[in-house]
């Protein structure tokens, strides 16, 4: 029953504070009065009696505070009081409050945004997919290099893997979706029949795929569409199930609609449709690969059983791969299967973004540190101004721990506002990453940040750490308050407080140091981006255009395609301004994989365990002239190199160096997929997959001898893109009015797209570096303003003694730049250690590149000079007479 007495008391001390205070006052008054009466009765005069009574009680205010302390047994009330008081303090000083919260919002927001990206793109990239923490990606390997996997290999793996709960295939593809008159290229996934069951995503309408729907060539023309596609192209038609649509001109029956918020399983893209693997031929330019163990195209995931580590799974899967190697030496020699953590998935954008995010986590932490230093500094200034208040409260009987709690509560208020703002910033920025990636063929990237419990938890943790950092600094100041001294000297003594100037200065130095490091990083990455985009990839980039004509989708078979290709290329070559044109199955630096083959070379003895495997491309006559790849000796392919002629090949320099020890290879023999071909030419090395790859062996074969229905067409011309595109469409439609083009781009654009990783890194680091620079400048400005306001007397004296404006200006600027220089020197030392973290993001730029360091130094110095100038100018306006009189 005690609560019956306690509750009203608690409530009244919470909500009826005034009444409780009044009661307390009355109660003590009554006591005093009685005591006075007693003393008077003992013969004291009333005044003496009063003083004695007060003394025996030990100070009314102290007793009151102690009583209050007793009454506030609940922490909540204490806290609420502090919060109320804190709010009052913050409201009284809106400029300070807004600036502080803004700083904290930026700092916490930067971290929350990076966390949400890491969460939404690397750790939990696939909304609605269950148990993502146990998902892992699978890829093939050949001689240690990554490759795709083949369907039969995956089936065998699925059958024999005991540590995997499930294995499913999800390969990205694209197709033209025609609904009525409108045709549009869509991103889709070729999946195994168990896909929706494996990820435990269930269509909201219709069904997922049934077992067996991924077998049999073209046997199951069914498709599950995304919620987005259903809503936009089919206007949410509730009767959609059973209707048909044309995907690449093949009629598919819509059997299901995926739930809202499900975007498939490919980092970087929102998937619009899912088709079973049996329909592969439709999406793969007429190639059906489900029965071919040597055809590697599939991208797959496994979900491990609970408690199984990736290493254990890898061991079992490697053992299975070794068995496959022994069983099928013709296709599987030298090949393995590798298990990747989701955030390193090699076949989507995760692997490419991982190194950027690693940097960004560090960078965001730097920004947060700078913010903390900045806010600490602001709070310090304020704590000097509040020294008087604190002292009075101490004198009135407030406990030091009570004051400490008060200060920490104020810090918490600030950082909580900052954290709320920060999460808001992260929420606004969750789709911001996409802005940094180029639009490809009208398809926008899909790279969402995700703000879930884990991200919020981390942000809250940061908020707490920040609270301690910014709340304890001023609290540290109150620790040494000497009651009598401060009270005696009064408020004016506050400004004379200089003992802790070093602390504030070192906070500024810290900011300059961190800001400088970020600037160096940004400068290095910028230089790297410039290099990677201007270095020659070994082919011309400016005047060569690339596109592809959608022959497979239009139902062409090989003989028709050959005729069409011959006729079109002649028409294109005849166009005004076209210097050369050629076909190639794969465009360099693109997403498509080159063919690869085990090779045999006359006179080259491989090591016992070596299976030389080389990439190659299928190209038409005039390819090297079109691409601007120099022919060093021998000849280009000609129209005579067709199906009936002897098989030939053109090799690159690295291949010659490795397999012919640098001797002239012309006329030598090379074994490609079991057939001997004759080397007829030697060309210079160029870039094949990425700008930062090392030169690798590579060769070319005639497209006619290794035919492909839908190669890319490259056109070399000085005409602008629009004109050549229109002309090409006109020529193609003259041959067949039903044909459509893929997107046409210059090879420079191709280079730019393949280096978008560097662009993203530069943009993000530069953005954060700029932020850091701004914050550090604000910090420096604050300290210099404060120093100037403190040294009015000194400045006045100097001016009275004859110091001119320029002397004073120089004096203040010198002090500011001294701080900057100290920060920069420490920054140089740290940056020399830290820039190595940029690792592979740097292309042909040393992490210690002096130019970048110099640039960062210049920017930092200029910014600090600007930040110091206003305080310095204000110093020159000091009125010596007034300054001296004030003393």
């Amino acid at each position, binding site marked *: 029953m005690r*609560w019956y007495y306690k509750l009203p008391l608690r409530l009244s001390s919470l909500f009826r504070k005034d009444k409780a205070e009044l009661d307390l006052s009355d109660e003590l008054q009554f*006591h005093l009065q009685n*005591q006075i009466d007693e003393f008077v009765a003992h013969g004291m005069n009333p005044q003496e009696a009063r003083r004695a009574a007060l003394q025996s009680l030990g100070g009314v205010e102290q007793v009151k505070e102690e009583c209050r302390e007793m009454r506030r047994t609940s922490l909540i009330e204490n806290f609420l009081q502090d919060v109320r008081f804190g709010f009052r303090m913050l409201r009284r000083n809106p400029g300070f409050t807004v600036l502080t919260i803004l700083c904290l919002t930026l700092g916490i927001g930067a971290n929350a945004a990076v966390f949400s990206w890491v969460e939404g793109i690397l750790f939990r990239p696939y909304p609605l997919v269950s148990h993502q923490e146990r998902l892992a990606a699978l890829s093939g390997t050949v001689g240690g290099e990554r490759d795709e996997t083949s369907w039969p290999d995956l089936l065998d793996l699925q059958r024999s893997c005991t540590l995997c709960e499930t294995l499913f295939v999800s390969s990205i593809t694209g197709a033209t979706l025609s609904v009525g008159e409108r045709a549009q290229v869509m991103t889709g996934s070729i999946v195994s029949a168990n896909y929706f069951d494996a990820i435990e995503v269930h269509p909201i309408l219709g069904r997922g795929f049934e077992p067996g729907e991924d077998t049999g060539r073209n046997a199951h023309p069914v498709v599950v569409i995304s919620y987005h596609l259903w809503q936009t192209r089919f206007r949410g038609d509730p009767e959609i199930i059973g209707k048909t649509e044309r995907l690449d001109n093949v009629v598919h029956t819509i059997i299901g609609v995926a739930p809202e918020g499900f975007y498939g399983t490919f980092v970087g893209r929102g998937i619009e449709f899912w088709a079973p693997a049996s329909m592969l031929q439709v999406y793969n330019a007429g190639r059906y690969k489900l029965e071919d163990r040597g055809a590697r195209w599939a991208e797959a995931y496994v979900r491990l059983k609970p408690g199984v580590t990736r290493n254990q799974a890898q061991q079992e899967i490697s053992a299975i791969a070794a068995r496959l190697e022994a069983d099928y030496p013709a296709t599987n020699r030298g090949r393995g299967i590798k298990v990747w953590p989701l955030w390193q998935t090699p076949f989507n954008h995760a692997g490419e973004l991982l190194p950027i995010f690693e940097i960004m986590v560090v960078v965001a932490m730097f920004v947060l540190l700078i913010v903390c230093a900045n806010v600490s500094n602001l709070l310090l200034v304020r704590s000097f101004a509040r020294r008087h208040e604190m002292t009075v409260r101490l004198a009135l009987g407030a406990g030091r721990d009570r004051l400490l709690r008060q200060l920490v509560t104020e810090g918490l208020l600030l950082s909580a506002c900052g954290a709320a703002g920060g999460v808001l910033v992260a929420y606004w920025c969750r789709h911001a990453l996409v802005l940094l990636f180029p639009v490809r063929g009208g398809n926008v990237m899909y790279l969402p940040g995700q703000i879930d419990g884990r991200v919020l938890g981390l942000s809250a943790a940061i908020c707490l750490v920040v609270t301690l950092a910014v709340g304890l600094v001023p609290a540290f100041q109150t620790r040494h308050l000497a009651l009598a001294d401060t009270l005696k000297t009064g408020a004016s003594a506050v400004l004379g407080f200089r003992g802790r100037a070093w602390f504030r200065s070192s906070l500024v130095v810290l900011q300059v140091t961190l800001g400088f490091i970020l600037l160096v990083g940004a400068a290095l990455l910028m230089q790297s981006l410039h290099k990677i985009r201007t270095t020659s990839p070994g082919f011309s980039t400016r005047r060569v255009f690339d596109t592809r004509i959608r022959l497979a989708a239009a139902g062409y078979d090989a003989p028709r395609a050959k005729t069409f290709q011959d006729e079109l290329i002649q028409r294109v070559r005849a166009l005004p301004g076209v210097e050369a044109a050629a076909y190639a199955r794969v465009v360099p630096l693109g997403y498509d994989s080159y063919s690869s083959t085990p090779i045999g070379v006359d006179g080259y003895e491989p090591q016992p365990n070596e299976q030389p495997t080389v990439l190659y491309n299928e190209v038409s006559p005039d390819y090297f002239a079109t691409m601007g790849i120099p022919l060093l000796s021998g000849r280009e392919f000609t129209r005579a190199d067709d199906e009936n002629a002897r098989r030939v090949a053109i090799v690159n320099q690295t291949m010659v160096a490795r397999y012919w020890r640098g001797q002239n290879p012309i006329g030598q023999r090379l074994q490609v997929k079991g057939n001997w071909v004759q080397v007829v030419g030697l060309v210079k090395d160029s870039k094949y997959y990425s700008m930062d790859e090392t030169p690798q062996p590579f060769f070319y074969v005639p497209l006619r001898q290794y035919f492909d229905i839908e190669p890319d067409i490259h056109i070399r011309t000085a005409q602008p893109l629009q004109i050549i595109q229109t002309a090409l469409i006109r020529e193609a439609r003259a041959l067949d009015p039903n044909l459509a083009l893929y997107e046409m781009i210059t090879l420079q654009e191709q280079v730019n797209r393949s280096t978008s990783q560097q662009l993203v890194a530069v943009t993000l680091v530069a953005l954060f570096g700029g932020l850091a620079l701004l914050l550090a400048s604000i910090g420096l400005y604050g300290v210099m303003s404060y120093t100037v306001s403190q040294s009015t007397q000194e400045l006045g004296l100097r001016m009275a003694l004859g110091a001119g404006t320029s002397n004073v200006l120089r004096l203040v600027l010198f002090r500011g730049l001294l701080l900057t220089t100290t920060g920069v020197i420490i920054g140089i030392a740290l940056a020399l250690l830290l820039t190595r973290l940029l690792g592979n993001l740097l292309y042909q730029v040393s992490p210690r590149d002096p130019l970048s360091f110099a640039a960062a130094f210049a920017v930092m110095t200029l910014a600090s000079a600007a930040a110091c100038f206003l305080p310095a100018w204000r110093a020159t306006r000091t009125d010596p007479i007034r300054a001296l009189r004030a003393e």
Partner: protein
Amino acid sequence: MAKPTDLVQGTLDLLILKTLALQPMHGWGIAQRIRQVSNEVLQVHQGALYPALHRLEHQGWIRAKWGESENNRRAKYYSLTPDGAKYLRQQQAQWKRLSSAIGLVLEMS
């Protein structure tokens, strides 16, 4: 007269509750009563009395009501709650056990 003995830690609560068990009383009265009853030996430090009263009130052992004092002043009277009475009995029993135990130890020879 010997110097008034300082209260043993924690015994102030016990004394207050015991005093209030006799009749409702205000703070001043409690202090006086303790002093008188203990033959001027126990001196309650006045600064400690009120925080203790407020603590006991908030723990629900005693409750307060405003009333008129003997000299016609408004005074805050504290009285024991039923729970407080129970608590007092427990504390008293414990105190007796403790003091008799100490007594035993001291009388050992």
